[in-house]
């Protein structure tokens, strides 16, 4: 159940993410990592309290210590202004347009997903990739978020069960354990 996108938009996003990060035999992709959920959760960050912008600290609990990542930081009034501008856009509100109108990520995603076509989930992969490449700006935006959803901390909704990190033999956050001096200095 998507947090912010409509069911149809979410399905289109999922299909687009799966083209960018395809799954294979023994190879996790966007589907396994929940990359579309990461992006949907980011777009709908303000549907949570506190908003899901910054995971907490100092550790996730995966390598010992407290599971602090799960508690998101509260935003200051200035933080909230910045993140509402980034996600929602300025929407004609004077307090968000001190340097002119701002197009938010929600609008960019809505427009980008529409441009991929209502039948995007039904056409074959080659055609999906062609449509993605046709919209260079949206493709670049989506790719950046796909990378975050594949290789970011799982508390943000992607990299489910750390599949992204595991596949590339990366341990992710390592506090409070860290690395020994020998692990640092030797091959």
């Amino acid at each position, binding site marked *: 159940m998507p947090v912010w996108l409509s069911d149809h938009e979410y399905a289109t996003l999922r299909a687009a993410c799966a*083209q*960018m*990060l*395809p799954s*294979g035999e023994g*190879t*996790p*992709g966007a589907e396994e990592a929940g990359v579309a959920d990461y992006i949907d959760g980011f777009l709908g960050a303000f549907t949570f309290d506190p908003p899901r*912008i*910054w*995971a*907490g*600290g*100092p*550790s*996730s609990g995966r390598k010992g210590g407290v599971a602090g*990542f799960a508690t998101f*930081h509260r935003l*200051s*009034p*200035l*933080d909230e*202004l*910045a993140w509402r*501008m*980034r996600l929602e856009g300025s929407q004609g509100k004077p*307090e968000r347009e*001190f*340097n002119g109108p*701002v197009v938010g990520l929600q609008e960019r995603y809505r427009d980008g997903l529409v441009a991929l076509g209502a039948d995007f989930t039904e056409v074959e992969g080659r055609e999906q*990739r062609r449509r993605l490449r046709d919209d260079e700006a949206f493709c670049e935006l989506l*790719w950046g978020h*796909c*990378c*975050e959803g*594949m*290789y*970011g*901390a799982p508390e*943000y909704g992607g990299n489910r069960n750390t599949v*992204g*990190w595991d*596949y*590339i*033999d*990366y341990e*992710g*956050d*390592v*506090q*409070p354990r*860290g*690395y*020994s*001096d020998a*692990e*640092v*200095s*030797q*091959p």
Partner: protein
Amino acid sequence: MSPSAIIIGSGPGGATAAEVLTRAGWNVVIMEKGRNHLLDPDDLTRPAEDYSNDEIKFISRYFLGPDPLVEPRAFRLSADDGEHTHVGEVNSIPTTVGGGGTHADGKVPRFREEDFGLFSTYGPQEGAAVDDWPLEYDELEPYYAEVERAIGVSGREGANPFAAWRSGPYPMPPGAPMYGAVLSSAAAEKVGLHPYEAPTAANSIAYDGRPACNNCGFCAFFGCPIHAKGDPVALLTRAMATGRAELMAETYVSRIITQGRRATGVEFIDRDGVTHTREADMVIVAGGAIETPRLLLLSGLDHPALGKYLMVHFQTIVVGHFADMRLHPHKGRSVTHVHDDAMVQDDRTRQAAVGAGLPWFRGGLVEHSGGGLPIMEARHSPWGRLHAQTMRESNLRERMWAFIMQGEDLAYATNTVDLSPSIRDARGYPVARVTYQPGHHEMAASKYHGKILQSVLEEMGAEWVIHTSSPGVSYHGIGASPIPESRHVMGTVRMGDNPDTSVVDRWGRVHVLDNVVVADSSVFVTSSGYGPTLTLVALAARAAHHLAGTAPEAPAAG
């Protein structure tokens, strides 16, 4: 009654001033426009637990600020570009309690003797304002020694054959060398260079109530989750423990209020947007080399040198690829080895400078470092069928080693910080506009030393090597951004004895305002090629001791 000071900015300079003054019995208010993620809000004498190993939070989402949507800057290469060519991130240093100290990986070299006398040592350069500082290394050494103990610096005395003299050893031994740095140091020695363990403000052993670094790898651009990095958390917690410091986070100073030759206090805006004023005997400005001149301009200070001579280390970036090695640069403290050879003149360097049409040139400290983290690597990898394989092979993260030379940037009158005519921050104030481009000196030094660094990576076994720079320049042909990546920003509120050509005196005091002192890297006369932090901290300690009439602490006996 104890004297009082308002300190604007809680980064390394402001924190140092607060620590020295409160120790001397002053009452200080530290006003920081960013949020407090450094100190425990329930007990400001203890570190907070907000930092984490989180690439999304620190790299993608501006956790340490500034957020360029609400606190942008404007940029242009020169006045010929019109009002600006870019609005957004420009040389952003964290806007948060602890300032630039929070995100730095803590390399804190001292300057050398000649760095304070560039004009006397080397002479002029056409088009540049090469000058001597109004103080010498010998005068600053006791303050270097005091702040190294205060923040906790690890290093090995005698490791760097070119280092300036020291009155004592480093407070801690060096930490574990990174595997890639072991290899690149060996290769550098074969080429005739002199690598050594980087002086680093990260604990190699438990020190001052903070734990030893556990090598988590989230060092450069991240706050330290266990506070093994001492700058400036050590200084701020110590100042708070005196009971004579008040920390006001999310407090935006909009103006220094002046009357004749004196400041009476400041006007500030609180987190809810309400404007207040506060008085003090002394105002200390420590906002960094971009925000400090901006505030002085917003306060109506008028001086022909204010905002001029912005310097940003010219970064020469030489990257090698090692197909058969996994260098795991994510383990360790980002940079454990450096070398100074590009700061030292020899016959070949002098000939190269003359060949480039210059009387002399200097490079800078060379950092031995590796690749980035997975999100960064993924962004630079292709999407689609080949992506997973590319990431698993990890050519950018695991198989790359690099040198970054922080090249000396000469002071040019045309490189400036002023107020943008049209761009505002969220509170409605004009943002800083940076006008900057490197000169012939920086590019010639980069070309020459870049080739030497290429030869080191080849000696190390690199399959291929590329050489680029930040800011990008046309001869590399790679299209790197003309906006400098360096966070080493200096100059703009130049220090000197002549009030006509400098904004502050040798103690950091504004020539025309008797009780306003600048305590950050904006007072630098030249940039050297060493990271500015320890020098700005030593200068801030010196300025604060001068105000308080105290002397730097001698090391404990034994």
